[in-house]
């Protein structure tokens, strides 16, 4: 079989970074190729080269054996290459049909937009991917999964032959993910060549036919999925074998640090009570929307609960703002890194010192040398990869941005650190690093709360697990009682099997 699209010898660099060096990639009709690599391996850059957003410095792109150059995104779309990103770029105020046809709407003979053709075309495209969504609905009224369907229908409306799925399942629920798998199967039978980017190995093994591995911007290898095992693939990815995923630790649980009692919120949660101890990792498990993040954000002063008390070291603390929370020693690493965690336009060192400005300054004035010292200390601890501390944070890969966000909080010397989905969307290597680091923090006596939707992570890391469902705590388990079955049952509200 001949590939539809091939990349050969592609290189692309940015100031201080060689993002891609001489990489290759082949996409075959009717097959799913998984592009695998750690954060910073060059996956996103490759997608941008494929879709015409970046122009490579050297190398060739061939489509059906012809050399092509994508001068811009439109050129790539015209050639039949389209991408569906993790964060879909759609317009909430437009209808489903308008979103699908935006930029290439069908015209009538007067050159005006043909609404009827648009609506029918949208319905056909949606039917082709097994959806009965009404094309006249306002997009903003749809859930994330339906939005994904619209994004895919939009991609297909351009007669795309090459479809890039860039971490499509990151924001989806279990059921929605399965619908996506079915959709990928449909696209395969239609002969589309699919590039699939994901950090989740179970997904890759489930739907990919082939794999291509990048590491540090270089091509490492490729092959057929059924000829390789998980361990071998991980070894290719990280250049070393990750034999032990979770660090073994002997927890030394000290006195209580944080006590929450009778925490109520008008809409998000009710009657939340728990105690967190020194040196403990407390896992919060539940389905998406169970109210875990909302409780954490209330503890961090983002939202205000209507009732309840928070005690730290047995002293009642009133938390009305993030400023109060930080002063009380509670810090929060948010799930939505791009919006809430990282300030991409500011340099790395300024991101790190932002909550600690009072400490690196004197009388409200900053001392640059101390700022750099603080940033240096904590970035070294987290093994950050960057060209300089003065570099804009936005230029780093996702995993490294997350390290900066964590460094920022550790620099405040907190008593309690809350990590909300700390390893979401980051690769296995960085994941292991974050896990080891959490274990280290707990060993130093920090009290850690970890909100996670990944059962292996919750079980592997926590000393104790609290399960939430519909805004309430429904179960609390420790020791041998911590089994996957028990967590899933509690989270889903299924009664204990007889």
């Amino acid at each position, binding site marked *: 079989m001949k590939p539809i699209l091939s990349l050969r010898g592609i290189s692309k660099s940015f100031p*201080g970074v060689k993002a891609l060096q001489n990489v290759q990639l082949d996409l075959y009709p009717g097959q799913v190729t998984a592009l695998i690599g750690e954060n910073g391996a060059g996956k996103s850059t490759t997608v941008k080269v494929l879709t015409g957003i970046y122009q490579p410095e050297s190398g060739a792109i061939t489509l059906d054996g012809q050399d092509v150059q994508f001068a811009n995104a439109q050129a790539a779309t015209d050639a039949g290459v389209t991408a569906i990103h993790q964060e879909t770029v759609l317009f909430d105020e437009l209808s489903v049909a308008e979103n699908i046809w935006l930029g290439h709407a069908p015209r009538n003979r007067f050159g005006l937009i043909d609404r009827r053709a648009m609506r029918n075309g949208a319905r056909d495209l949606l039917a082709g991917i097994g959806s009965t969504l009404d094309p006249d609905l306002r997009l903003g009224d749809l859930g994330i999964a339906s939005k994904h369907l619209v994004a895919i229908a939009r991609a297909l409306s351009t007669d795309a032959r090459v479809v890039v799925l860039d971490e499509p399942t990151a924001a989806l629920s279990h059921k929605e993910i399965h619908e996506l798998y079915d959709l990928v199967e449909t696209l395969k039978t239609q002969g589309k060549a699919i590039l699939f980017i994901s950090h989740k190995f179970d997904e890759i093994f489930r739907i990919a036919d082939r794999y291509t591995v990048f*590491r*540090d911007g270089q091509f490492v290898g490729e092959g057929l999925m059924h000829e390789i095992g998980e361990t071998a693939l991980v070894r290719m990815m*990280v*250049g*070393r074998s990750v034999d032990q995923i979770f660090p073994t630790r002997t927890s030394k649980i000290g006195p209580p640090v944080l006590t929450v009692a009778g925490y109520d919120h008008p809409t998000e949660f009710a009657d939340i009570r728990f105690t967190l101890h020194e040196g403990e990792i407390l896992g919060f498990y539940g389905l998406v929307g169970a109210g875990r993040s909302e409780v954490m954000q209330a503890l*961090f002063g*983002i939202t205000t609960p209507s009732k309840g008390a928070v005690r730290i070291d047995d002293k009642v603390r009133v938390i009305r*703002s*993030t*400023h109060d*929370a*930080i002063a009380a020693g509670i810090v*929060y690493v*948010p799930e939505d890194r791009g*919006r*809430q*965690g*990282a*300030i*991409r*336009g*500011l340099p790395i*060192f*300024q991101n790190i*010192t*932002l*909550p600690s*400005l*009072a400490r690196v*300054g004197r009388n*409200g*004035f*900053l001392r640059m040398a101390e700022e*750099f010292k603080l940033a*240096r200390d904590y*970035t*070294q601890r987290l*093994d*950050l*990869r*960057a*060209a*300089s*501390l*003065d*570099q804009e944070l936005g230029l780093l890969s996702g995993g490294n941005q997350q390290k900066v966000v964590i460094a*920022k909080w550790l620099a405040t010397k907190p008593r309690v650190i809350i990590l909300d989905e700390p390893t979401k969307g980051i690769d296995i290597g960085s994941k292991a690093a974050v896990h080891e680091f959490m274990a280290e923090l707990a060993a130093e006596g920090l009290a850690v709360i970890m909100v996670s939707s990944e059962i292996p992570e919750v079980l592997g890391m926590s000393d104790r697990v609290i399960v939430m469902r519909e805004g309430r705590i429904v179960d609390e388990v420790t020791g041998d009682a911590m089994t996957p079955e028990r967590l899933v049952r509690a989270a889903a509200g299924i009664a204990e099997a007889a």
Partner: protein
Amino acid sequence: MTQQTHTARAIPDRLQSPAARALRSWESILVAVAIAIFVTNSFTSPYFLNAWNLSDATFNFTEKAMIALAMALLIISGEIDLSVASIIALASTAMGLAMQAGADVPILVLVGIGAGLLCGAFNGFLVAGLGLPSIVVTIGTMSLFRGIAYIVLGDRAFTGYPPGFAYFGQGYVWWVFSFELVLFTVLAVIYWALLHRSSFGRAVYAIGNNATAAQFSGIRVARVKFILFLLTGLMSGIAAVCLTSRLGSTRPSIATGFELEVVTMVVLGGVNILGGSGSIPGIVLAALIIGMVTFGFGLLNVPGIVMSIFLGALLISVIALPRLFGKR
């Protein structure tokens, strides 16, 4: 084996020295433009290179530039205040009323500054307290503040300020250096320290880049924004004292159109109109450029409308150049 080593690497603080960075900055473009205008002016008019004439020329921009210092911080934070000229009108009217009530010079100054602060607090409450969009709020207060001045004054004017009051707009501290110029210089140094060397300034940049993440980092976003509106109010009050003193009278139409010239100065100075970046040296350079262009054209008897066209073209080309050459 291609075993990758994962030992901690030391990350350098900076790749470029601050001096090297400054050379490639927006401000260096502005310096070049300023020098070009200075040289052109020197050749085209024999009256340009005269200390007293140059000193006179600074009155073209000092009052607006004082406001531009505070406006720069506000725009960097992602907000804007279009009511500054109307605050001048209201503050000047308040001073006129105080004068009629028999207030002496120190009281007049306090009234002017106080009125500016009150107006700023009102804007700040609406934007930071109630979360309304600043562009709408300050378009509203722009009409409101000047409207009050018109109600009080109608088509009359306050004249007859005490002789001692003239110093702020007409006095000289030493030789050719006017009180206004010296005041602006001192304020520029204060604002430079505030924006570039204080934690407050850092918070302003953080808010302008990502207000949500700033809030998640413990920055009291509403408080910072309120203070920024207080500062533009304060600077407008100070400008009102200087301008009223210089003109010797108050009319409700005083300082009409200042807000757009202030915003022009700020944008020409390299502040991103969408917030997040900009510097005080840029504002000072932009003020000098605008002042010299106005003065040079004045010497050549160029009509005011041509001057506006030139400034408009200058603004657009200075903004467009870096985009065309792929910087920023």
